[in-house]
């Protein structure tokens, strides 16, 4: 990928045009931690990271949580969160080392040479001021434009970023604008002072897929138009690949691989990079539905108490024993409400539930212990799904005692078997949830569900909070357990890649309605309805140029 030719347009007569814009050399970042049970000590978060970034270039930083990617991004502004500081190496911006710069010097860098776009614009904007005032603030302080010029520039940027009503949207307050729009306004704010470099820190992670593609397209267009250089930070390789010229893969604060985007995607050298590229590519052979379904949801309409809006309207689905039905939708589609209805937490206003050929009482209180046992649930946040004051053996053992009256030695034996089944082992029995990693926590939750020997487990976004590789491990485990125990899954997710990996049939939800439903191969084969088309075409593909193609196809 060659450096853009128009990059000189934006260099604004800076001194070091010949050299790279940003040169990070042997960067080491550390933080002091103050644990309760030990003396304060320093830990190294990022070690020996080096790269250069030319004007107008985009470098993607990718890695799982704890990789240090955001920390590096902020180091490009010589900023550290929560006591993180530069403990070694250099950060050369336009040839000047800013790693030891004074506050006064840094103020000339931040908001002028380098700007920042955060993951949550909703929190990043000051609730007390109008958007436009915040967007033009650093431009005015830099005195690079008059108030009138800055305003005009901001409005032009709103237009470039595809914001509705660019003339007036700036007069609104942050809480009056949607999340996807705020993310674009924040990008406009970063671009407004015409910096050389923008640090994008997971700018689309908090958004729904169909919104993500719009914001992504807007960011890409703006980068192209202004010729600004960027560090683009994300945990999602498919997203990074769409906007970056080069990609650097990070793990535990160290560089794994740094190549141009096409090489990383198509010919990754390191095993870790290969794993990241091949994530969510589990092949799953779909099974045909059985004649009699295990669970039949018939014409369900649900309304939350105290409101009159139907969160679900006339939803019907069927699920066969030992199979997986994926319920897909974005936030507000009613997919989690469906889970609440099936579990009996929210009795439906209309419609009926049939389980194993028997009518399932709508309310939790009316259900028998046997009915409760047959239907288990796994949550998105394993953290809060387990009592922090219970040990793993209590968490997994309680259903054994409660449903089967298994106690003492036999219970201990059974807990050990279950821990083996989730590939963790007996040694974890006496640990508390706080002592487990994210993936381990979710595994314990799976074991708790399995302990009841259910015929159906509802999985509510069980992999969404996990890093991609860990999520893959969980999905593989779920598939293996399914083939062994013949348990059915109702798999609720917003992630279509996950759906492809494990579903036998799919229900697509949109605004409380089931818009598409059937076996996986049918649902994923054209012709599509409008929403499914939109949803499918919005999922970032792990290939270079996907976004450009999507922009052309959709006219974004």
């Amino acid at each position, binding site marked *: 990928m060659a450096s853009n030719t128009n990059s000189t347009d934006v260099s604004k007569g800076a001194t070091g045009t010949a050299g790279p814009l940003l040169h990070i050399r042997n960067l080491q970042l550390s933080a002091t931690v103050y644990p309760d049970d030990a003396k304060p000590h320093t830990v190294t978060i990022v070690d020996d990271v080096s790269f250069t970034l030319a004007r107008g270039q985009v470098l993607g930083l990718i890695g799982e949580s704890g990789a240090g990617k955001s920390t590096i991004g902020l180091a490009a*502004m010589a*900023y550290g*969160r929560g006591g993180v500081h530069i403990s070694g190496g250099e950060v050369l911006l336009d040839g000047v080392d800013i790693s030891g710069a004074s*506050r006064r010097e*840094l*103020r*000339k*860098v*931040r*908001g*002028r040479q380098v*700007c*920042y776009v*955060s993951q*949550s614009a909703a*929190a*990043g*904007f*000051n*609730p*007390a*001021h109008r958007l436009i005032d915040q967007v033009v*603030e*650093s431009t005015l*302080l830099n005195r690079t434009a008059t108030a009138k010029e800055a305003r005009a520039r901001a409005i032009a940027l709103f237009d470039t970023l595809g914001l509705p009503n660019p003339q007036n949207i700036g007069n*609104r*307050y942050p*809480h*009056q604008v949607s999340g996807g729009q705020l993310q674009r306004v924040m990008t406009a704010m970063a671009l407004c002072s015409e910096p050389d470099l923008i640090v994008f820190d997971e700018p689309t992670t908090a958004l729904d897929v169909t919104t993500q593609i719009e914001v992504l397209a807007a960011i890409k267009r703006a980068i192209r138009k202004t010729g600004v250089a960027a560090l683009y930070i994300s945990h999602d390789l498919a997203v990074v690949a769409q906007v970056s010229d080069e990609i650097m893969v990070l793990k535990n604060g160290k560089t794994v691989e740094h190549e141009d985007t096409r090489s990383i995607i198509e010919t990754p050298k390191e095993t870790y990079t290969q794993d990241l590229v091949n994530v969510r590519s589990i092949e799953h052979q779909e099974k045909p539905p059985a004649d009699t379904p295990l669970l039949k949801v018939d014409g369900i309409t649900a309304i939350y108490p105290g409101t009159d809006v139907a969160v679900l309207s006339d939803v019907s689905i069927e699920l066969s024993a030992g199979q997986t039905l994926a319920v897909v939708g974005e936030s507000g589609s009613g997919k989690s409400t469906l889970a609440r209805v099936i579990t009996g937490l929210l009795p439906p206003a209309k419609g009926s539930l049939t389980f194993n050929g028997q009518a399932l009482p709508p309310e939790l209180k009316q259900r028998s212990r046997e009915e409760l046992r047959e239907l288990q649930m796994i949550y998105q946040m394993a953290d809060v799904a387990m009592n922090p004051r219970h040990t793993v053996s209590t968490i997994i053992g309680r259903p054994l005692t409660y449903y089967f009256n298994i106690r003492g030695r036999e219970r201990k034996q059974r807990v050990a078997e279950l821990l083996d089944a989730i590939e963790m082992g007996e040694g974890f029995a006496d640990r508390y949830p706080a002592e487990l990693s994210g993936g381990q926590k979710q595994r314990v939750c799976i074991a708790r569900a399995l302990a009841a020997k259910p015929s159906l487990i509802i999985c509510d976004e069980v992999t969404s909070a996990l890093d991609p590789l860990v999520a893959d491990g969980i999905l593989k485990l779920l598939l293996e357990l399914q083939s062994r125990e013949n348990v059915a899954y109702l798999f609720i997710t917003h992630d279509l890649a996950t759906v492809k990996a494990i579903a036998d049939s799919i229900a697509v939800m949109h605004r409380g309605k089931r818009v598409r439903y059937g076996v996986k191969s049918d649902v994923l084969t054209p012709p599509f309805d409008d929403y499914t088309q939109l949803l499918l075409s919005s999922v970032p593909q792990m290939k270079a140029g996907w976004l450009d193609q999507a922009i052309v196809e959709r006219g974004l």
Partner: protein
Amino acid sequence: MSYILTLLAKRLAISALLLLAVSALIFAGTEILPGDVAQSVLGQSATPEALANLRRDMGLDEPALSRYFGWLGGIVQGDLGTALTNGTDIADAIGKRLYNTVFLASTAAVVAVPLAISLGLLAVLYKNRWPDKLISGTTLAFISLPEFFIGYLLIYFVAVQLGWFPSVATVYDSMTFAERLNAVALPAATLTLVVLAHMMRMTRAAILNVMQSAYIETAELKGLSAFRIVAKHALPNAIAPIVNVVMLNLAYLVVGVVVVEVIFVYPGMGQYLVDHVSKRDVPVVQACGLIFATFYIGLNMIADIISIVANPRIRHPR
């Protein structure tokens, strides 16, 4: 704008309702509990006939509800009734004392509020460094001190040993403003010290809370000066919580006044109330209790109103 007015009207209505409920509670608290007013006046050795006569004279044989409305109706018209012990008009006796109490409390507030906010700001600016630790440590100790410890310490050292201020806060009508200030110096200082610690700790927490918001980081990454970050980005959002803190502590000050007035023998509402509690003079206690509660409810209401008005989400609804 109409949305905000509705909210404010609602808040005012709640306060009015609360005040009504409190008046009922105070009335009930002194009427329904064992031992009635006639018994208190005549003492345990009173003959049944004497009790019955007095009850009839005072209207105590009427049903409680009609007596409550009679009492409430009187209060609304400014008639607080007469004291049992000496038959004087309560409203007359309270008038001057109320002024004295408000004067003392305001003097304390005028000193305490700016001091607490500046100390709170100072602690935030030097967070986790020695000035913060010193301020936080001292205030942690101070919130545990009873009013009379601070009060008598001041009397013992400042009034008796050093002789700077009078130990007894005597005030009379012909006093000049400066003389009056001199007289209330020590009680006001005591009150200030009592509320200062709470107010400062809560101010510090409120500002820190705002300073930890993501938009402060945004401002910092925009290269703004520390002054501009605090003045333009932190302050507009910190005003509501700080005002809230101040109002809550002023409400607390209203209570502290009772003990401080007794320490310094200051002729205010607090001392009047305490005197008449020991004499079991129920009408006076009811009247004073209601006035104190009114101040307390009013200050809490102002705190809420300011939070409503300062919230941009409410001022500029979607």
